[in-house]
């Protein structure tokens, strides 16, 4: 073989940081080619995609609004992925959080008080948690693959939301549009900055990142999660329970995703409609890997993925390019992130294999 991978004795520290940046550069490079192929001026297109959306205070606040649900979901996923628990149903858990929290806002419409919003956040978190508990139960009790069950439940949650907003929860004065009535004042997250839509959900996301870091880096439970993920045999020998890690991962991941969903309906949307999320729960998977499964890295990655969402909208608005470009960029980015990881763990050598020296 011409190209050979030699395992490094120790993962390269410098490359650990550099790999996501290389991946980003490669994505940008592919983007340039893509825009060129579409007959656009690549510089103008890249500027419209990456700079123009955030060249104002309003733009930056929109970035934070989109990054908040991503970070909330991705921190939870990263904790699970560390423990080798593959929750890919954050989108569904987010939807259930939106349904439960939003349902509370509708139930108390007209009789609300300052107590309502905290209750909604709680309901959102619990709703997501409950939805996450199902794959955890099926995994620990029945050995059912959590990737498939959590994903199937995402489709179920989205259909449930569709049923509710088309049926029982539809706004009676809404001319038959599939959406609920607008929530009351007290059921909305406070706006933090006048003239923008920056809402309290951003604070919740920052708190989640901080707590996630404490859990993973500073607690014994976090240590157990990592050992169970990296060395299952050692974990079993030490008496760390795999089942407990599965439960923790899904409850934390589901709860945070649920809060993210509540943040959407009680934040920028102010009501429930059939598409609570443009795919935050799936994009969060990319954030988790791009952020190297570290809460602070996840926060940075969420900002970048948020920029991809905004950039897609900006391209559509200013250059009349399809919104679907965001999805292409997301996929490419994740591919490059995964591929660049190889340089962290292996040395790439050219030339035929040689017998490794005796130890």
């Amino acid at each position, binding site marked *: 073989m011409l*190209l*050979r*991978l*030699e*395992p490094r004795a120790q993962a390269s520290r410098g490359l650990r940081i550099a790999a996501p940046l290389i991946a980003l550069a490669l994505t940008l490079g592919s983007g340039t080619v893509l825009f060129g192929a579409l007959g656009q001026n690549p510089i103008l297109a890249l500027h419209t995609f990456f700079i123009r959306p955030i060249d104002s205070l309003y733009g930056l606040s929109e970035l934070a609004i989109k990054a908040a649900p991503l970070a909330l979901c991705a921190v939870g996923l990263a904790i699970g992925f560390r423990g080798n628990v*593959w929750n*890919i149903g954050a989108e569904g858990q987010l939807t259930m959080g939106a349904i439960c929290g939003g349902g509370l806002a509708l139930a108390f419409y007209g009789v609300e008080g300052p107590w309502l919003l905290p209750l909604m956040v709680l309901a959102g978190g619990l709703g997501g948690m409950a939805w996450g508990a199902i794959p955890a139960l*099926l995994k620990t009790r*029945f*050995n*059912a*693959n959590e*990737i*498939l*069950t959590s*994903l*199937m*439940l995402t*489709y*179920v949650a989205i*259909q*449930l939301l*569709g*049923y509710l907003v*088309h*049926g029982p929860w539809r706004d009676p004065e809404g001319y038959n549009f599939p959406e609920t009535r607008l929530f009351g004042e007290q059921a909305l997250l406070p706006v933090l900055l006048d003239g923008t839509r920056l809402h309290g959900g951003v604070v919740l996301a920052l708190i989640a990142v901080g707590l996630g870091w404490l859990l993973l880096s500073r607690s014994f439970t976090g240590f157990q999660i990592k050992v169970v993920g990296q060395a299952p045999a050692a974990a079993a020998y030490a008496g760390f329970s795999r089942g407990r890690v599965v439960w923790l991962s899904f409850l934390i991941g589901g709860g945070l995703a649920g809060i993210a969903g509540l943040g959407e309906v009680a934040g920028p949307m102010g009501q429930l409609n059939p598409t609570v999320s443009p795919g935050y729960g*799936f*994009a969060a*998977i*990319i954030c988790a*890997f791009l952020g190297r499964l570290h809460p602070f890295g996840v926060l940075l990655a969420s900002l970048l993925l948020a920029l991809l969402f905004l950039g897609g909208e900006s391209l559509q608005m200013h250059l009349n390019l*399809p919104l*679907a*470009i*965001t*999805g*292409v*960029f*997301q*996929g*490419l980015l*994740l*591919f490059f992130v*995964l*591929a660049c*990881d*190889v340089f962290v*763990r*292996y040395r790439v050598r050219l030339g035929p*294999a040689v017998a*490794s020296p005796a130890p």
Partner: protein
Amino acid sequence: MSPEVETLVAILVATLRAGTPLVFAALGELVTEKSGVLNLGIEGMMLIGAVAGFIATVLTGSPFAGVVFAMLAGTLVSLLFGVLTLTLLTNQVATGLALTIFGIGLSAFVGLGYIGTPIQGLQPLAVPLLGDIPVLGLLLFRHDPLVYLSLVLLAAVAWFLARTRAGLVLRAVGESHEAAHAIGYPVIAIRYLAVMFGGAMSGLAGAYLSLVYTPQWTENMTAGRGWIALALVVFATWRPARVLLGAYLFGGITIVGLHIQAAGFEASSHLLAMLPYLATILVLVLISRDANRIRLNAPAALGKPFHPDA
């Protein structure tokens, strides 16, 4: 024919059609997994196949060209997965997810100009004489060519895995890549071929959706069928014949849901649309409950990366 028989025949025929894309996709994944590779990107590869087949059909006017092109497109994106997981040794679960995210995005992007474009899809083909037998003719001999192809491929895969030397080698690679490597089999090359077969079959499954099942292109038209196909492989405990049973079971659940509504029962289309996903969960739970059965039937090296020097 009495109206009851007519309805029943219609349900059965529709079940067959709803199950066929699942047969293709699950059969491809089964072979991939038998070689020890877990490709979670079926949904993405199906979408790429669906859009590629559709565009090729629009451009050439021939749905057969569409089918071929869909398989090529599926193979091509599966190669991307192969390079990443087999050559660059990336995590198979994460890479499969990436493939799905990429496939959803790319297909939506490429297919944008083709939403609502009408095409002449692949038409049913009546077998002469046999197709004219009442009831039985409708049930068995008046399908589109791909339904028959799915059955032929199923038999071929079953025979290949169980009865040929190459099939034995493929299974050996999936059970223990170290042993297969030590004997001198090219583990990576065999896995590449298995991954490509999975890609071609996913492309075919996608083409069935966009050229036969609903001859049109809509964003995300697979609606989770790629994931259901993955669950089917577990349900089938990695045996081809059971894939067929599972695929038709799921096809039937989808169709019965539609017929409940058509029969005038008050039922929300949203709630009925949950049925296949709930059924998938139920079936997974029932099959996986017996951990030993899974352990005995799953390829032992499934999902594990292979590095020849390590």
